[in-house]
């Protein structure tokens, strides 16, 4: 069993250990869950460091073999990572630990099962990023759906069952389309291994099929990302899911869409995607502006953040549409950066909601008076979200726009409007909450405690670290970008 298998299945440890803890020993459960969440974290760190020093060997086992007609199909159990997935794995590990820590503040009932489902979810996500072929990818992709559905429907907010149902329906349809696309790839290439598929489609030019599969992939991952008309499930999840789950969802799960689009979409079908560039760019622009305008008029903090996620995902699409090094690198940066920023935001929103019992913007005002730390961190999160230089958001937005202006300058010009709107809604929401006069509606609320400050600081350090030393990530994904660039033929 290789390192990657250990990484992917390491959350199982937490899953099993929790069975031996009595159900009602809340403190013990929190502690054990948090401790167990460090196991995948350490493996993630190890993978990250090893990837930087030398290549990590892929885990390969022959798994399923069957024949149909003259063709013989072999499906391996194979795990492999590239630069992009290494970073996403590391991101997943960090955010999962933070989400589990946040769980101790936000989850009151059935805490053991909650943590167990979280570990299952982590297993699925790690598997998604570590799989070396499409078949395995799909299996892990499906594994993420189920715990997520249960977490949503059991621990969610007022409208949780409805939200969970929407989540399942949309993502189910997405999975269906993805399955069809994977089947088509499998039949055509005779394998689902990433490299084999890439080479197959690079040499065997079947533009009709390639275009069809590319569109299918766009749809499947578009639901996950989400892309404009398919986004409503995600808003519901953002609003209704319990805080730890939203942290994971906004922080990591949405990135599966970006990962799929970049690794499979551009990676396998660069030529087909070149035909879709304008569509992608317009979709990205719509996402960016539509999300921003809607974030501007929401009355609920979590809804603002949901639409802001849509808006930020638009930037990923724009980066993909640029189809050059800078754009794709920007899109990858944006995926990571948005993961961190969204996690930070929801962590703080959770702490806020715990104190005030509301996230309605009308009721919140002048929080900086009693809770200067919370207010300060919220402001930092907003500044990160609006892409202040020195933070990760700026690097990604800058690279995306740099790339975009080379290919589609007019889209870029309209896109900058989105950047202005981002400032407007971010400041509107955060300043309305923290600035102004404090209306004594919530009594003497206390500022953040140390268990809330530490994860917040970890995220902020990551965000600023990437913003100040972007080459940490850039050097990791250099090879990935290079491969993609060769595919595009730039």
């Amino acid at each position, binding site marked *: 069993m290789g390192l990657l298998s250990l990484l992917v299945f390491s959350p199982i440890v937490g899953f099993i250990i929790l069975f031996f803890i009595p159900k009602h020993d809340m403190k013990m459960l929190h502690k054990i869950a948090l401790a167990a969440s460090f196991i995948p974290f350490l493996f993630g760190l190890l993978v990250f460091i090893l990837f930087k020093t030398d290549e990590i060997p892929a885990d390969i086992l022959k798994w399923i073999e069957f024949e149909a007609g003259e063709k013989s199909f072999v499906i391996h159990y194979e795990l492999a990572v590239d630069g992009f997935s290494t970073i996403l794995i590391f991101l997943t590990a960090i955010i999962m630990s933070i989400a589990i820590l946040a769980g101790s503040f936000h989850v009151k009932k059935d805490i053991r099962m909650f943590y167990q489902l979280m570990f299952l979810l982590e297993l699925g996500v790690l598997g998604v990023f570590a799989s070396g072929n499409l078949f395995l990818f799909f299996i892990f992709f499906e594994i993420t759906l189920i715990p997520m559905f249960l977490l949503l429907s059991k621990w969610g907010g007022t409208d949780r069952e409805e939200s969970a*149902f*929407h989540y399942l*329906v*949309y993502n*189910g349809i997405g999975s269906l389309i993805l399955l069809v696309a994977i089947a088509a790839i499998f039949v055509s290439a005779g394998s689902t291994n990433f490299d084999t598929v890439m080479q197959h489609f690079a040499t065997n030019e079947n533009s009709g099929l390639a275009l069809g599969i590319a569109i299918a992939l766009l749809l499947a991952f578009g639901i996950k990302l989400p892309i404009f*008309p398919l*986004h*409503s*499930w995600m808003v519901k999840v953002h609003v209704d899911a319990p805080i730890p789950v939203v942290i994971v969802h906004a922080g990591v799960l949405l990135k599966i869409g970006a990962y799929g689009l970049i690794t499979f979409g551009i990676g396998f079908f660069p030529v087909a995607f070149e035909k879709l560039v304008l569509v992608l760019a317009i979709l990205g622009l719509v996402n960016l502006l*539509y999300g921003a*305008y*809607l974030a*501007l*008029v929401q009355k609920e903090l979590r809804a603002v953040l949901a639409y802001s996620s849509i808006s930020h995902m638009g930037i990923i699409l724009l980066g993909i549409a640029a189809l*050059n*090094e*800078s754009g794709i*690198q920007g899109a990858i940066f944006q995926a990571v950066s948005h993961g961190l920023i969204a996690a930070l935001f929801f962590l703080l929103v959770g702490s806020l909601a715990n104190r005030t019992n509301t996230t309605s913007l009308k009721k919140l005002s*002048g929080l*900086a*008076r009693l809770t200067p730390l919370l207010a300060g961190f919220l402001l930092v999160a907003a*500044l990160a979200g609006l892409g*202040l*230089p*020195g933070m990760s958001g*700026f*690097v990604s937005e*800058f*690279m995306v*726009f*740099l790339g975009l*202006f*080379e290919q589609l*300058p007019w889209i*870029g*010009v309209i896109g*900058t*409007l989105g*950047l*202005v*709107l981002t*400032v*407007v809604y971010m*400041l*509107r929401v955060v*300043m309305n909450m*923290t*600035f*102004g*006069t*404090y209306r004594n509606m919530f009594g003497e609320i206390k500022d953040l405690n140390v268990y809330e400050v530490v994860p917040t600081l970890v995220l902020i350090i990551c965000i600023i670290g990437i913003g100040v*030393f*972007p*080459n940490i990530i*850039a*050097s990791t994904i*250099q090879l990935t*970008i*290079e491969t993609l*660039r060769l595919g595009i033929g730039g």
Partner: protein
Amino acid sequence: MIDYAWLVPVIPFLSFFILILFRTKMQKTSGLVATIFSGLTLIYAIVIFGQLIKRQTYLAEWQWLTIGTVDISFGVLLNPLNGLMLLLVAFVSFLIHLYSIGYMDGDKRTSVFFAYLGLFTAAMLGLVMSPNLLQFYMFWELVGLGSFLLIGFYFYKNSAKKAAKKAFIMTRIGDMGLLIGLILLFWQTNSFRFADISEVILAGQMESGMITLIAILILIGAIGKSGQFPLHTWLPDAMEGPTPVSALIHAATMVAAGIYLIAVMYPLYMASNVALAIVASVGAFTALYAATIGLVQDDIKQVLAYSTISQLGYMLLAMGVLGYTAGIFHLFTHAFFKALLFLAAGAVIHAVHTQNIKQMGGLSKKMKVTSVTFLIGALAISGFPLLSGFFSKEEILAAVWANGQYGLFVIAILAAFLTSLYMFRLFFLVFEGESKKTIDKIQPTPITMKIPMIVLAFFAIFSGYLNTSWFETYLADWLASGATFLSTHHHETPLWLFFVTILLSVGGIVLAYFIYGKKRINQEDWKSSFPGVHTLLKNKYYIDEFYQLTFVKATNAIGTFFTYVEKYIIQLCMTFVKDVVQSLSKTGTKTQTGQTQTYGAVAFLGLVLIVAFYVLKGGY
């Protein structure tokens, strides 16, 4: 020493870091600590400047980001222009730190205030030392952050909240111009480095249309930051911040960054006459426009804010008529006398706890130092002979004249006249006349506030002699040594221009004296004879209202429209998808009768079908 020049912005950043980390424990000592850090910065900047005089330029770069094959670096560039700005920023920042100890005394969040000051100073120093446009842009946004935080320092005031938000958004709009400009420039020149960019431009490798476009886009950035028309409305509102902040950020340093931007990109502007003409027109228009508003404002800081906008317009005008040194010179002198005016105004506000000049009066007897230093500042800004403003303003007028822009020249003259008029209106209303009853108690001005004012007054008088044809044009020579692209010929100033400048400044002062000092001319008559004009000026030409009605309304309308799209179209689609899935599954449930026999029959039927299929097909 110069090899560690990157430490210059790090020192104030450390101050920020320490103060924000120990903000509750350092409430009392924060002012002193921050001032010491700021003093260290100043000393270091002076040392570096001393070494720079010998070697002219210094460049150090480190790799920052790799995009494919392009390496973007981060670094430190020092040349005559940068060195001058570095010194100026460090110096004014130090004085403001010192002043703030007295001004902020008693505030509950002093440590936060000084932390923000440190952050701003660090960003501003980083800005002036940037060797490339991208780094420049990053620090450009960060000084905006410092400004935003300090404007919103009194976070519990709704007006401060609005002002801070407005400042951030308005400058961000300008920044987008700069961002687009720098990206376009990158694709033209394949570099962000100032040196590479000017090389490409000077080699004539860019289309002139592209040059003009980029120049205008970058100008939009400068307009946003320097509060030029039409993105100026945030600057008067920014006066919500504590007064030392207004002096440092919104008078001496940050707002001048726009002019500095034009200066560092000057090769680009020199390559496009259209861009230069636009720069000059925006500057001239703003200079006059803001001066007219400054005439009627009743808030002491508002008057100074509009005066700042007007003076920045002046600098922009100078840049637009190839008066590179004149513009920088005015930036230099303006930093001193405008900071001085703000500090003096701050002392007044500190003493009487109001900003309304209608409630002040006769303060000269009670606040000797303040009134004298304010008078020096007012004289300097009015261009009174032998003070610094006189030399720099005269040089700008000369540049405009030499460029042959006679229309702009008239506007500039008018603006200069109005400047001395509104400055002395302010002076006479605040310091002369009878004291009002509303002000019963006057708080004494602490010594930490007086020292910076006296020092600045000194510079407001003498900084002009750095660059005058009477002695030696030190500044011009110094700047020219770093800007080889400038044409070296020195245009002779026509002698009559001196007299025009003197006439304007003295004329304005005398007029102000008669209206506000002696009250010989009844201002009410003026108001009643031009009622429309007065209301128009008083309401700042209704620009704010115009923006509110157009852009803000439109944005909200689009937002609302999208809400309906979301609510009716997207939700409808969502419900539709959900319903389809639900009805499908309902149909599915209907087949599940629970009758085992039916299931068995269906299973058997299936078997029969499979067998029949294979029988007909004949096996596999």
